[in-house]
């Protein structure tokens, strides 16, 4: 590749990265100051971070978001993994049916998924929102198909004789399943779980339609806060965005380190 095209490639990628990261980075810089708006940088201060971790409302909102994401993802992972294993060994008609149904929440707009679950549970079945059941069901319905989709390829790639061999060597079917099949599927299950967590953390629509009035996740809270006039909360959210950015950065580094070690071992 000649030099001119190389320069072009690099500058294009840098421009795209600038576009993607500029807002987050600018906000990160301002979150460490007393400024209340972008443009006038004032004195260094950690006030936003203190607010973020001391105002009970904010603490509750962050805790609730994480708890919901983990809870729904655990349910989704169990349900999706069992679903994928069962479906993989089922007859073709059953497989086809589950595949189509599984695809519905994936392609459907989240607004429609959220609204339909709200109509079903709250309007049609009169389930009380304050029980959190509609909210958890909604998040599970959003996440499970993605767990299923990330476990299925591992099942297809698995050596079918492993399970038979385990049975021949004296395992009961459930032992073979736990000790052989689950172990083979583990990477798919883990990545399905991670996908589920990120989807649940990022969700806005399903949450708004199914949540109890007193409960907020980061998404619904931020949307309301941008309309409100509370400057203190607004700038504390800048700090939150910086913290999340750093956490994501850290986990990407750690993931790469782990993956790097693995590939070193292989060679």
């Amino acid at each position, binding site marked *: 590749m000649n030099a001119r095209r190389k320069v072009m490639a690099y500058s294009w990628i840098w421009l795209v990265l600038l576009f993607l990261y500029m807002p987050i980075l600018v906000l990160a810089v301002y979150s460490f100051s007393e400024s209340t708006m*972008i443009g006038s940088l004032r004195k260094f201060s950690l006030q936003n971070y203190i607010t973020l971790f001391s105002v009970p409302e904010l603490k509750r909102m962050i805790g609730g978001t994480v708890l919901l994401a983990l809870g729904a993802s655990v349910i989704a992972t169990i349900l999706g993994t069992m679903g994928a294993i069962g479906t993989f060994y089922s007859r073709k008609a059953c497989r086809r049916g*589950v595949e189509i149904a599984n695809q519905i929440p994936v392609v459907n707009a989240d607004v429609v998924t959220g*609204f339909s679950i709200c109509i079903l549970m709250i309007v049609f079945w009169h389930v009380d929102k304050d029980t959190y059941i509609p909210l958890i069901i909604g998040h599970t319905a959003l996440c499970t198909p993605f767990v299923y989709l990330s476990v299925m390829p591992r099942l297809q790639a698995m050596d079918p004789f492993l399970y038979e061999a385990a049975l021949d060597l004296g395992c009961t079917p459930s032992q073979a399943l736990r000790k052989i099949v689950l172990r083979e599927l583990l990477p798919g299950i883990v990545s399905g779980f991670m996908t589920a967590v990120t*989807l649940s953390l*990022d969700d806005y629509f399903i949450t708004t339609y199914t949540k109890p009035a007193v409960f907020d996740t980061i998404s619904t809270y931020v949307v309301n806060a941008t309309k409100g006039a509370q400057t203190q909360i607004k700038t504390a959210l800048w700090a939150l965005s910086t913290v999340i950015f750093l956490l994501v950065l850290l986990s990407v580094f750690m993931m790469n380190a782990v993956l790097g070690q693995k590939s070193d071992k292989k060679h």
Partner: protein
Amino acid sequence: MRFSRKYLNIPYIIFLLLFVIFPLFVICYYAFTNGQGEWTISNFTDFFTNSKTLGTLFYSVLIALTTTVVCLLIAYPTAYFLAKGPFRRGAVWVVLIVMPMWINFTLRITALKELLSALEGNLAYHPFFNTILCMTYDFLPFMIMPLFSSITKLDPQLWEAAQDLGARRWQVLWKVIIPMTMPGIISGVTMIFLPAMTNYVVLDMVYNSTYIMGSLIGSYFNAYDWHNGSMISVVLLFFIFAVYAISSHTAEQQTIQRGGSAL
């Protein structure tokens, strides 16, 4: 009953029937009835004769189309350079591009909104431009990923062959590279177009605006009007499955990348 592996999916099948398939029937039922429980199609006739709702439909299609085109124009060269460019340790660059997907989108939009307000003074001057900018900012990584994976699969010998046979550079691009990566393009377009038509949060945060399809559901929801809300959902469902049916013949199944963990 003897234990068998295939019974393991029974809980998931029940879950799918109860909370994925059944809700769709319920919203269809609500869309075709009125407050007294009588069957009616007036929800639909009202929608398609009211100039405000029709305007909203066209405006959201316009926003979705523009966003998709802008994303495609930015994403294609990006994915191309990442896949075939001069980058050593290409994986690091890909992770950099994908990483924003893991940050909560409302926080990212807040960041962009603050920055834009500082740059433009008042966001009200260029509403359409700002809307497209925010949408592009939100969705861009989702377009880059499918394009990247389909360009990576391209065999470089193909365009060497095309060049040897006398094709010029742009001919190679138009007649070899773009047709070969069509599955990636289609799957990226589906992943942007549908959310862009319904994601009213971006508009809501930047402008407090309710002029997009998704937000009609939101406002009916706030007014406890289940029947009209269901009607909009059914209209959207129709759109979604029409687009999906057209694209699924050609696109690879890459929807899993919505979560971003495909790496």
